[in-house]
């Protein structure tokens, strides 16, 4: 049960379990973003869930084709912003009024108006921190080892190549059937990816 949950969370980060026989999945290359888009839609429609598309830039409309909802990064931003605001409020109130009250030209020890700049700055700072770290967390990064890096072709993914990976941990996965299905969708080439583990333990 717990194992399944962890596996699902990892799948949402595009990290898939490999099988006993080191099979990680089938990597199919497509010619262009249009072909990738339609193929992703086809993969989704035929019931696969553990798959991902890879492209050098975000392909417009791909989230919809893959049936994915809104990203959850915003919750991290909100939490970070609230934390920063509360911290800045508490910092200025506690140091000014409680721990180190000092009379500066008869001004109140603590009031909202002169506190606004720092309330604003710290809200922004922690919201930004939370956004960036939340994004990396949701993506499961840093992940220096990835079975996909064994593929020579996959190196072009950050240049001009477009791929779909169907993980062998998908319940519908069948090496032969999935491969012919991908060919039907218009894959230019198909490669089986093996998870040999990392040589240097990363």
């Amino acid at each position, binding site marked *: 049960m717990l194992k399944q949950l962890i596996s699902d969370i990892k799948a949402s980060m595009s990290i898939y379990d490999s099988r006993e026989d080191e099979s990680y999945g089938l990597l199919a290359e497509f010619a262009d973003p249009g072909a990738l888009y339609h193929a*992703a839609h086809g993969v989704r429609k035929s019931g696969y869930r553990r798959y991902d598309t890879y492209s050098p830039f975000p392909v417009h409309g791909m989230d919809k084709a893959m049936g994915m909802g809104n990203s959850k990064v915003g919750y991290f931003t909100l939490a970070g912003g609230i934390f920063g605001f509360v911290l800045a409020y508490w910092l200025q109130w506690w140091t000014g009024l409680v721990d180190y009250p000092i009379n*500066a030209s008869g001004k109140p020890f603590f009031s909202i108006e002169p506190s606004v700049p720092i309330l604003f700055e710290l809200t922004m700072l922690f919201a930004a921190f939370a956004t960036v770290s939340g994004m990396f967390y949701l993506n499961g990064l840093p992940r220096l080892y990835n079975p996909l890096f064994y593929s020579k072709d996959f190196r072009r993914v950050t240049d001009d190549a477009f791929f779909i990976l169907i993980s062998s941990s998908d319940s519908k996965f069948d090496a032969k059937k999935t491969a012919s299905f991908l060919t039907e969708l218009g894959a230019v080439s198909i490669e089986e990816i093996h998870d040999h583990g990392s040589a240097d333990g990363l």
Partner: protein
Amino acid sequence: MNTANTDIATGNYVEFHEDEPLVQGNLSFHEITELVSYHTEKKTPPAWWGAFGVASTLLLVLVVMVAYMTWNGVGVWGLNNPVGWGFAIVNFVFWVGIGHAGTLISAILFLFRQQWRTAINRSAEAMTLFAVMCALLFPTIHVGRVWFIYWSLPYPNQMAMWPQFKSPLVWDAFAVSVYFMVSAMFWYVGLVPDLATLRDRATKKLRQKVFGLMAMGWTGANRHWRNYEKSYLLLAALATPLVLSVHSVVSFDFAVSIVPGWHSTIFPPYFVSGAIFSGFAMVLTLMIVARTVFGLQNIITVNHLEKMNLIILVTGSIVGFAYITEFFISWYSGVPYEQYAASNRAFGPYAWAYWIMMSCNVVFPQFFWFKRLRRSIPFMFVIAILVNVGMWFERFVIVVISLHRDYLPSAWDYYTPTLVDILTLVGSFGLFFTFFLLFLRFFPMVALSEVKAVLPQSNPHFYDHSGDGQVVDHDLAVNGGEIN
């Protein structure tokens, strides 16, 4: 959608409005990767070494000057009563201002869906980082006892003291350092996919490992792009008010005081528009050189430069309007000190500085009303340099002229910078250019994934109409590249 220049109903020839493509020369995805990555992979050219030699020599000058000042105290600068804020604060405001253009391009233009920003945002953001580093240096050394600079930050200490949060100087320390950190994060997040490109292209083991570490294992998975794009949007939404706040807070350093010429509510918007004005001039200066040296004329096109010139024209006019408003309000206020401060700027002993500022910031950018001039590269280069000079003098005018004659005529004096002052300013350019040259050498200076994403062939529906995408039908580019 229309794909031909013939109206089907009438059979007449119809002239469609056709936007020039953002990227020229019909470049493919791969050609863009090559064009940009090549400069980080080739053998270091002698010209780079030459430029780097000059920049790092100037950096050395800065280090020596700062060390000399730290040893002897701020007395080695031209500071004295009544001018207690001289070159250091002028330089600080100047460099913070330069930084603003980078954030404007990366955040505000992103929110406004200005796709032309993708050609210049990476290097403009890098410029922001290095400019803010220069800016942070000056208040740090200006405190005199550099080794106590951390007292400006709130931390529990044995003295049982806390910073005074009602002081604009503390706001400033927060605003500029928060700005630096957020800009650095924004820059890095944008860089990750391109670092992965360099990792995947690397042939040497060490290079693979270094870029592999920095790219954090980026694969371009759509499950990643989804979170990535959202976080980029959120960072842009956070950085937009932040960039407007930073120079507002810097202007509070002046506006919250009672010095005539400083005590003014116009300062925040006036400082922010001046910052964007000077920042764009600096981006323009750097980009004109970089696009020629690196052969990126197809990516950073004359259209991009023209758009930057338009922003310079707009913000320059806002700044000019602010100068005139200051004059009017000082007269209208009926306060003799304010009136004197205004006339002393234009006709006092520092009138030369004032008129340098007026001509460089208000008069010269007006030439950009002419399309031919704002598309002429040598002309815009000269104007950009003049604007940089003018904006430095604006800060000089604000800081020095206001201070040198305030309420008490017996305390009036004429401020003259020392050689140390001047060499420190020159040295700060060394710091800036050393980092910028290192950036150009080792990192992709154009945001690859973003430029690719604004090409028409990045749209998946592009291929619905033009077959397999191998042949690009020129007529498809009509109506602003909208294919649907």
